[in-house]
């Protein structure tokens, strides 16, 4: 039995528009999504904004009721058995909200220990243990409003672990953290995985998914478009090389010209202040360079590099765009 399973899950958000004449609007966030996460596995969920990653996580955390299909965690139905399931799961959502800012870090943890029914004496030692683990012991009695973003995120993680859940849902936990903070958090995730916890992680950072996850599913427009190990997914673009060209003043016509060249699979443009970075996926490797440069039609070209395709390149091929 998988630890986490979605079977044909669909979720539709219903909103209204207009002031005088109100119109109902439906947005399909998940459409027949099926996937399974095995016990002890660190499973990544990737996808662009609006792909349905957070919706999937919220369904599994019992916060949303699926419009259709079935979701189970540890064999418990997320709708029917929600009350029993809540003792076994924990979640972290990216961002700074979701803490009591006027309370200290320690009081935040004590409060949630009470909500999860942890026996008072055990709660005290658990709080100290977690404060130590996330490196907040020295600042534990300060109000959370004075914490940095990284500290708040670590406190989120500590709160999630207060009842020692078997299953963790981490929704973009490193969002907005500085590189050092993000690295520390990734290290904590590795430690938790080493302790045997089952973790479902959503992230925008491909290198993070590549480094941490045993298996990955890519969601796009509410559907699973691929799943497998990072190696499997990279294999989808194994025949491709990526040529990176740093250019100045590229117009859409330049990009269209490159896309139309023989042997070019895709071109992605990343604006970097005054310059653009063109990532060209091609089966021709470095031999594509002369015709690519010719296609740029005299544009000023800076750095040029040819490399093997990565998970991000597989993602780009599957999703067709980058955020």
């Amino acid at each position: 039995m998988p630890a986490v399973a979605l079977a044909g899950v669909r979720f539709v958000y219903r909103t209204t528009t207009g002031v005088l004449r109100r119109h109902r609007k439906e947005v399909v966030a998940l459409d027949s999504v099926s996937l399974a996460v095995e016990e002890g596995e660190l499973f990544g969920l990737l996808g662009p904004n609006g792909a349905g990653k957070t919706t999937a996580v919220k369904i599994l955390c019992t916060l949303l009721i699926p419009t259709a299909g079935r979701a189970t965690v540890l064999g418990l139905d997320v709708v029917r058995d929600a009350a029993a399931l809540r003792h076994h799961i924990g979640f972290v959502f990216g961002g700074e909200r979701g803490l009591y800012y006027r309370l200290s870090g320690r009081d935040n943890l004590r409060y949630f220990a009470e909500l999860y029914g942890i026996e008072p004496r055990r709660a005290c030692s658990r709080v100290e243990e977690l404060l130590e683990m996330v490196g907040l012991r020295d600042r534990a009695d300060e109000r959370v409003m004075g914490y940095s973003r990284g500290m708040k995120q670590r406190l989120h993680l500590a709160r999630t672990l207060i009842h020692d859940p078997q299953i963790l849902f981490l929704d973009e936990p490193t969002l907005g953290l500085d590189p050092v903070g993000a690295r520390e958090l990734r290290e904590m995730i590795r430690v938790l995985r080493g302790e045997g916890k089952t973790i479902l992680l959503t992230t925008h950072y491909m290198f993070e998914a590549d480094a941490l996850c045993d298996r990955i599913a890519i969601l796009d427009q509410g559907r699973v478009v691929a799943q497998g190990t990072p190696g499997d997914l990279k294999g989808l673009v194994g025949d491709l090389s990526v040529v990176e060209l740093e250019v100045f003043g590229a117009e859409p016509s330049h990009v269209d010209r490159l896309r139309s060249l023989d042997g070019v699979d895709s071109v992605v443009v990343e604006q970097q202040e005054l310059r653009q970075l063109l990532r060209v996926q091609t089966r021709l490797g470095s031999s594509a360079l002369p015709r690519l440069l010719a296609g740029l039609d005299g544009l000023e070209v800076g750095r040029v590099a040819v490399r093997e395709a990565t998970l991000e390149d597989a993602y780009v091929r599957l999703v067709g765009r980058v955020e």
Partner: protein
Amino acid sequence: MSRCLRPFLFSARVQVLRALGDEFLFVIALVQPFAIGLAAIFMLRHRADFEAVYAVVGAGLTALFSLILFGGTGTITNLRFSGNLEHLVAAPVPLIVVVGGQIMGSVALVLVPMLVSYGLGAWLFGYPIAIRDPAGFTVSVLLALLSLWAMGLLFAPLAILWPAVNSVLGALEYPVYVLCGFLFPVLLLPGWLQPLGQLLAPYWAAYALHGTSSGSLTAPELALAWLLLLALTAATLVLAAWLFDLFLARAQRDGSLAAL
């Protein structure tokens, strides 16, 4: 029971810690009852049957009702916008226990400064504030707090389920003061308006509090008031529990637990 009692008490504690330094609560707890009590004293002091304790108790009731009204209607919205609602819903304790604890925390926090403001008022203006039936008054205070707390618990899901109702509730602050006889007897109202307040728990709270402070109620009259307060509180709690379930089911279906 203990599964809910500790989280309830801790939620109250969290609310007290959060509210320390909250300007809105400060105004409701200190400034509003003082100002309203003062206005009532100046309005009523020339009447032959004037008793300062009536104005003092009435001012306290206005503060409590305002707190319950605005605290109650805003509780879930505030939790949603602070991002805490999802974490509370995902915890094993029912949301009504947590919200109930938080509203109780606000009520408890308001009582202390309110008492201070009474003492200050009495000292400043030299009016004796004597409670004629202290035991009856104490029980009435507890029942009044319970019934108003239950109303706050009812307002919390009501305000978020139907935003239009929230707007109407917001406008009910002063009408309730008047209809329930907080500051002056309802006998001063037109006859056809007087029974309206009797449908509301605050009316019976005011009736019992004013009656025990002035000693004007007989034992059966007081017992009836307490019974009605308890009955209205129980009915309010049943309705609140149903509305909490309705709110949660709807929010989990349309994805509105979190504010974007």
